[in-house]
């Protein structure tokens, strides 16, 4: 089954929850740096991190009441941008169970739902893997 997945140089599994620390920021930064070097990257989100690419987030955050005219992109919009910028070398997967458990299984285009019992296939498909945070 691992052969069905594209190969990756690095798998970055975002296991920890957003808004609790800067692991999502690090995941974006490391992905960008790897992709800019031509590396193949897989992102996997588990737990509350599956909400990063929830379709309902839309393109912009709610308005900042003290800077009403400014737009702030959502993580879904940033994920879409990263996928668009690196369409052949970035693949983004979300855990199906965690997504459904949190009502977050409607993701933006480009996010592939995968069952958690397939996760080792993703590890096997990557030369290296980082787990950021814990579920």
């Amino acid at each position, binding site marked *: 089954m691992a052969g069905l997945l594209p190969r990756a*140089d*690095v798998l970055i599994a975002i296991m920890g929850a957003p808004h609790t*620390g*800067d*692991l999502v*920021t*690090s995941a974006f*930064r*490391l992905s*960008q*740096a*790897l992709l*800019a*070097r031509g*590396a193949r990257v897989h992102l996997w989100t588990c737990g509350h991190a599956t909400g990063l690419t929830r379709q309902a987030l839309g393109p912009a955050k709610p308005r900042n009441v003290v800077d009403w005219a400014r737009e702030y992109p959502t993580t879904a919009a940033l994920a879409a941008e990263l996928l668009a910028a690196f369409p052949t070398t970035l693949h983004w997967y979300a855990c199906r169970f965690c997504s459904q458990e949190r009502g977050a299984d409607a993701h933006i285009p480009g996010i592939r739902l995968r069952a958690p019992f397939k996760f080792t296939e993703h590890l096997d498909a990557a030369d*290296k*893997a*980082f*787990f*950021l945070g814990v579920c």
Partner: protein
Amino acid sequence: MAEYLLVESQGSYAGPGAEAFLGDAVRLARAGHGVAVLLIENGVTEGLAAAGPAVGRVLAAGGEVWADAFSLDQRALSAQRLAPGVRAVEMDEVAERLLRPGVRGVWH
């Protein structure tokens, strides 16, 4: 011998895990493995001159210690405040190291 890129992201404010993880780095380095420790996010505080001795032990064991420049800037921590031997790096350098054949990465 293996090459390791060990990433400490939490720092001692999150509990004793950071010191234990840096202890892992010391053991690997003393065993003869190549070790580079990247301090990132709140973990950069471990690289300050005012911090505890854990990072010094990594350096003494022959490991490299890097501090993520972005995380330092976010926290208004000048690179001049880093302990001797700790070097500020950008993420591109981290990516280059991680992509080297044989380098193993572990994130804490």
